[in-house]
């Protein structure tokens, strides 16, 4: 990766409820590019975003964002760093008791002392960027799933962050909504010069927009590189994931006792 790293993870180990989620992950995420983090369900992709955002502390290892060692930051410093980050949650996470306009205006009202007319202009510009200027007066309960994520996206770019993290942005979206989100992620990255981290298991969509991709499985990075490099990756596990094969290094069957014991077929062996 030729660009300088905006986010750097080194030997990150993280466990939860006695289960080791990351077993020494090392990863560099370049500045100004879209990096997709992919992997089978339950491998800790969202957890990785939370570790980067400082919501979870690793057991050991280094997590650096924009030169700051995130786990070592004091609360105030961490919150200041987060003002440079935007995060699009899987559910959108809009505040349900306020309108679309107020949701987008929320970070501006909290972190700036801009006059009301300027806040209004910025909010409408951000909503225009996601194509929802006309939905400013709607309540979150009146939005479709795709619209919810677009409003959440407008909110997460309200403060013009340096970094934006997308948590499964394509999950549960119809083809049109997915196409809109793919376009928005690509356009926002190029127009705002954002560093984007995209966590997803939607392989075609993610590879179509990312500059770099990384695949996580069994708590480790099993493959990293440009989309083309990954497509030609020698690892069977990477190929199974990218092509969606039902059986392979990740077995179809969950580990179980001998079928003969369960089905009681005497004299048979499987």
């Amino acid at each position: 990766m030729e660009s300088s790293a905006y986010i750097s993870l080194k030997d990150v180990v993280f466990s939860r409820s006695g289960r080791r989620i990351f077993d020494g992950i090392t990863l560099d995420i370049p500045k100004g590019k879209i990096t997709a983090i992919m992997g089978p369900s339950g491998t800790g992709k969202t957890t990785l975003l939370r570790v980067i955002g400082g919501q979870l502390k690793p057991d050991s290892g280094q997590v650096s964002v924009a030169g700051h060692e995130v786990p070592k930051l004091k609360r105030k410093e961490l919150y200041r760093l987060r003002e440079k980050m935007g995060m699009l949650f899987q559910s959108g996470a809009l505040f349900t008791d306020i309108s679309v306009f107020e949701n987008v205006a929320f970070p501006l009202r909290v972190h700036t002392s801009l006059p009301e007319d300027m806040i209004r202009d910025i909010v409408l510009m951000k909503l225009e960027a996601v194509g929802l200027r006309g939905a400013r007066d709607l309540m979150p309960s009146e939005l479709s799933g795709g619209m919810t994520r677009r409003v959440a996206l407008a909110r997460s770019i309200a403060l013009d962050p340096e970094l934006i993290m997308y948590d499964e942005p394509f999950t549960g979206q119809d083809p049109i909504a997915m196409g809109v989100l793919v376009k928005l992620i690509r356009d926002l990255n190029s127009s705002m010069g954002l560093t984007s981290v995209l966590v997803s298991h939607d392989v075609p969509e993610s590879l179509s927009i990312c500059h770099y991709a990384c695949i996580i499985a069994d708590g480790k990075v099993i493959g990293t590189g440009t989309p083309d490099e990954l497509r030609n990756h020698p690892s069977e596990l990477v190929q199974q994931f990218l092509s969606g094969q039902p059986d392979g290094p990740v077995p179809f069957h969950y580990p179980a006792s001998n079928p003969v014991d369960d089905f009681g077929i005497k004299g048979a062996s499987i």
Partner: protein
Amino acid sequence: MDYVAGFGRRSLEVVGSLGRATQFLFGVLVGVPKPATGFPLLIKQLYSVGVLSLAIVVVSGLFIGMVLALQGYTILSDYGSEAAIGQMIALTLVRELGPVVTALLFAGRAGSALTAEIGLMKATEQLSSMEMMGVDPLRRVIAPRLWAGFIAMPILAMIFSVVGIWGGMLVGVDWLGVFEGSFWGNMQSSVDFVDDVLNGVIKSVVFGFVCAWIAVYQGYDCVPTSAGISSATTKTVVYSSLAVLGLDFVLTAVMFGDF
């Protein structure tokens, strides 16, 4: 052996939960929001936990005052002391029933709503998104709700007592015919501001603080699923009720226990 292990595990869970709740409370009390942003949030929550609880508090206070008058009259008239009914109603309400019943109603109406609201905000990642926007949810969401409960409870308890006394007068004076001068006169001479009214207010302040703390903590600490929120809401009502009744005994013993 399993029983002992289970008991030990449960004890550790309880101690851990108490530790988290105390740490949580410290975080909320230390992180006081700026007045310019905190005050509008506090007003909104005062409306939601205080004003919206008025109806249930007023109606309950009225009926409890009326029942006290009926029961009191029945017993006191046997001894020809029905004139003391005002004194009995006022002392019962101001010292005990006002703070205690209001706290129980508060836990059921406002406390459960606070837990469910915060729990749902957690389940829908609203609290996480706030954190990621650089906004501390303890300051923005929890602190205004805790302070609102703390402020609203004593006011609601006072309203409860006032309405209860009025309900007692309706039944005692207007219906059962107790002399109005005796009703108010006995009340005035026997109810002491510091010993009775102030102690009642102190009780309601303590109950308000405990109920609001339990409610916001249960919401914040709940498992973010529908079953988790349901369980947290139930815990809020049960723990608050038990805490109020237990603390009432302790406070009563301290305040009025100079036997």
